[in-house]
C-alpha cells in the first residue's frame, strides 16, 4: 500500500474516532473499500469503532458532498414541509473533503442545502483520483483480482498476469486539469496544502471541440452520447442535483422524452449540463459514475470555461461570493443580444 495513503488513512481514522467519541459529530462520512477492486464505497461511520473501517486511496471517485443533504436531514426530527426547523443546535456530521468536494459543499451552503455550522470538514489535498476505465483499457479489459496502489504506480493483478501501471497515466481527465486540489473550507487538515496548480491548457478538451465546424460539433455531440442508456447515474452522482422532482421526471410539462431516442438523449444531456452552469466544480463524479463511458464532463467544462471568461468566476471558491449565475453586473457583456449587435452595425 502506498505510504501516503496509509498515512492519510490512519490520520483519518484517528480524527474520525476522536470526533465520534467526543460526540462532536453524530456521523462521519468517508470511504471504505468495497468487494470489487478499484471501486470504493461511500461509508458513514456512526460510532467510534466504525471509524477503523474508513480508508483512503486513489479510487475515491464519487463526490461525498452528494450525500450530505440527506445525511444531515436524517439527524433532524421529522417535520412537515413548511414547518420551521427545531430550535437549538442540530447534530453535526463530519466529512472528508478534497478540493472539488469542499467547493461543492460551498455551493450547497450557498444554495441552502447544508448548513456550514453543521459540518466538520476534514480536508485532504487531492493527488488526483484514478479512472477505473483507463486502467481497464490498459490491461485490455481482462479480469482484475486485486489492485495494489504504490506511491506512484498501481500493481494490477489478475488471473495469469501482473502489470505495473504509472499512476498519473490513469488519473481522471478532470483531476489532470484541476488547478485547485486543496480544500477551500475545512476545520481540520490531513497533510499539507499544496497550493493551486498551474495548467495552461486545462480547457484543451473543450477547445478541440470548439475548433470544429457546427456540423462536426453536432456529430461529435451525438456520437459522444450515442451509447447513453438514460440510467441517470450522472445525475444521481452529482452533488448539484438535489431537486425533489428532477426535470427529467416532470410529466407536466414533460421537458424530456423518456425514450432513448437520439433527440431525447441529446436534450437530456444539454439540459443536465446546463443546470450545472456556474455551479459545477468539475469533480468528475458524473463521468466516473457513467456505466457507458460517456465524457459528459466536456459539456460542463465548456460551461465552466464560458462562465470564467465572461464573468471571471469559478463556482464554490468562497462562501461570501455569490454563485456567478445568481448575481449580475450592470455592464455584463451583451454583444450576443440582437438589438445591441444591430445597433453596432448601424454605427
Amino acid at each position, binding site marked *: 500500500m502506498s505510504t501516503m495513503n496509509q498515512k492519510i488513512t490512519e490520520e483519518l481514522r484517528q480524527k474520525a474516532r476522536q470526533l465520534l467519541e467526543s460526540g462532536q459529530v453524530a456521523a462521519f462520512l468517508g470511504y471504505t473499500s468495497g468487494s470489487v477492486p478499484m471501486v470504493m464505497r461511500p461509508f458513514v461511520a456512526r460510532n467510534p469503532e466504525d471509524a477503523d473501517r474508513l480508508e483512503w486511496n486513489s479510487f475515491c471517485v464519487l463526490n461525498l458532498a452528494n450525500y450530505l443533504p440527506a445525511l444531515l436531514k436524517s439527524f433532524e426530527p421529522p417535520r412537515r414541509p413548511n414547518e420551521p426547523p427545531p430550535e437549538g443546535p442540530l447534530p453535526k456530521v463530519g466529512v472528508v473533503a478534497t478540493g472539488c468536494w469542499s467547493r461543492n459543499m460551498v455551493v450547497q451552503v450557498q444554495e441552502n442545502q447544508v448548513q456550514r455550522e453543521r459540518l466538520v470538514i476534514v480536508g485532504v489535498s487531492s493527488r488526483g483520483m484514478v479512472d477505473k476505465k483507463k486502467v481497464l483499457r490498459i490491461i485490455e479489459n481482462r479480469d482484475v483480482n486485486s489492485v495494489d496502489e504504490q506511491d506512484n504506480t498501481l500493481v494490477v493483478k489478475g488471473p495469469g498476469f501482473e502489470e505495473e501501471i504509472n499512476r498519473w497515466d490513469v488519473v481522471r481527465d478532470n483531476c489532470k486539469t484541476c488547478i485547485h486540489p486543496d480544500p477551500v473550507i475545512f476545520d481540520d487538515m490531513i497533510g499539507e496544502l499544496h497550493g493551486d496548480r498551474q495548467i495552461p491548457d486545462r480547457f484543451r478538451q473543450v477547445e478541440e471541440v470548439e475548433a470544429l465546424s457546427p456540423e462536426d460539433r453536432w*456529430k461529435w455531440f451525438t456520437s459522444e452520447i450515442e451509447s447513453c442508456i438514460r440510467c441517470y447515474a450522472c445525475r444521481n452522482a452529482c452533488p448539484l442535483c438535489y431537486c425533489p422532482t428532477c426535470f427529467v421526471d416532470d410529466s407536466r410539462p414533460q421537458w424530456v422524452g423518456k425514450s432513448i431516442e437520439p433527440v431525447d438523449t441529446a436534450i437530456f444531456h444539454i439540459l443536465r449540463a446546463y443546470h450545472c452552469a456556474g455551479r459545477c466544480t468539475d469533480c468528475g463524479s458524473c463521468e466516473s459514475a457513467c456505466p457507458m463511458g460517456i465524457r459528459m464532463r466536456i459539456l460542463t467544462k465548456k460551461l465552466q470555461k464560458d462562465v470564467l471568461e465572461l464573468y471571471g468566476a469559478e463556482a464554490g471558491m468562497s462562501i461570501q461570493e455569490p454563485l456567478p449565475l445568481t448575481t449580475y453586473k*450592470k455592464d*455584463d457583456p451583451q454583444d450576443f443580444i440582437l438589438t445591441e449587435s444591430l445597433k453596432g452595425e448601424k454605427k
Partner: protein
Amino acid sequence: MNDTTIKKGEWEPKIIAFLCNWCSYAGADLAGVSRYQYPPSLRIVRVPCSGRVSANMIIDALRSGADGVLVSGCHPGDCHYISGNYYARRRFAILKKFLEFVGIEPDRVNFSWISASEGEQFAQVATEVTERVKKLGPARHLVKEF
C-alpha cells in the same frame, strides 16, 4: 419595409417569441397599432419577465417543431422587477454559447431588448430573426417527431 407577404409554396419558418409582459409584448402591440409590417412567422408567448424564460422552455420550443426562438425583454435598467433581465442576460449568454458548442446554429436562438415604445424596432427584430432563420432552413437537430 421588406416585402412580407408569403409567396405561394415558399417555406415560412415558425418562430416562438417569448416576450416580457412589460416591455417587449407592449412593443409588439405598438408595432401592430402603428401598422408596421413584419413577417407572420412569430408565435408570441407572453411571459411575466425575460427572467422567467428558462433553458427548458427554449429547448422545448425547438423540440416541438419551432425553427427559431426569440426571447425579448426590457432594456437593462428598465426591468419591471428591477433586475430580472440582468439575471436573464447571464443565463442566455451562457446558453447561447452552449447550444453553439453542441452544434445548434447560433442564429436559431435569439435575444433582444425591446421597450414598450419601440414598435418599429420590434418589427425590425422580427424581420431580422425571420430572415436569419430562413437562411438556416427548417430546424433539424432537436426536433422530435411525435
